[in-house]
């Protein structure tokens, strides 16, 4: 319980760091850290397969994507810098409604759940669930990946052969 609570607090702090970091690179590293802590939580809860995926894909691949985007784009123009300074407080404009929403959510969360948590110990192997029960989802995953491939083909053709139509 205590370990888990500490991990959760660490994850929340890492998430906060991600969103408040000034530099994109730092934010990306914080994001990877969040992913890593999530991986540890998953391990401790007994979900190793998902944890491995989270570690390799989210902490690894997505960080690579972000870093390559940063390296391709990262140039802060003077105008951008000025507008950021001007709008320094604009980032707080949505805070009040969010806080109200959070308070409301906390209030209603006190209501009874309506289900008794079963602790059904029906854990089977994730791989067999994946193959036996969620086979249709696997097919869907393949299709999403294919769509992503064509997305890369379409969107990363380089600025030179932007063909208009």
């Amino acid at each position, binding site marked *: *319980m205590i370990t888990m609570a500490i991990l959760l607090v660490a994850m929340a702090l890492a998430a906060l760091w991600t969103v408040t970091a000034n530099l994109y690179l730092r934010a990306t590293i914080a994001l990877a850290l969040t992913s890593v802590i999530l991986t540890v939580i998953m391990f401790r809860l007994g979900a190793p397969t*998902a944890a491995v995926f989270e570690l390799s*894909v989210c902490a690894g691949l997505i960080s690579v994507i972000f870093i390559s985007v940063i390296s391709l784009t990262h140039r802060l123009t003077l105008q951008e810098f000025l507008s950021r300074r001007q709008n320094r407080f604009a980032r707080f404009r949505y805070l009040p409604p969010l806080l109200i929403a959070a308070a409301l959510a906390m209030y209603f969360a006190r209501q009874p759940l309506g289900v008794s*948590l079963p602790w059904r110990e029906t854990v089977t192997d994730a791989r067999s669930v994946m193959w036996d029960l969620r086979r249709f989802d696997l097919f869907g995953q393949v299709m999403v990946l294919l769509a992503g491939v064509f997305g890369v083909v379409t969107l990363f053709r380089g600025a030179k052969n932007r063909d208009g139509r």
Partner: protein
Amino acid sequence: MGVEPATWFWLFLTFAALVMISGLYCFLVTFNLLRMLIGLEIIIKGVTLLIIAAGFLSGQLALAQAIVITVIVIEVVIMVVAAGLIINFHDLFDSLNVKNTRSLKG
């Protein structure tokens, strides 16, 4: 672990909500397309935590793992496409300001 299931439930729910709200906050207030994407990523992290916790609490951890793996794959593909869009924006405007995405209105 000798703790009430309900306590576990609220613990996970609270922290997942915290993570999601910080991501959402970043998503809503930033003026930078990339940062918007990072906010989105944080929100999805919160949801992943929620799913795994739900699987853990209900004893359907295997199902939850299968779901999380699928979600991760979809997440990566969406991030790739979004990154492609952002790079194209940068090619067009030489900037990542969100204000460049406000030409369609009315």
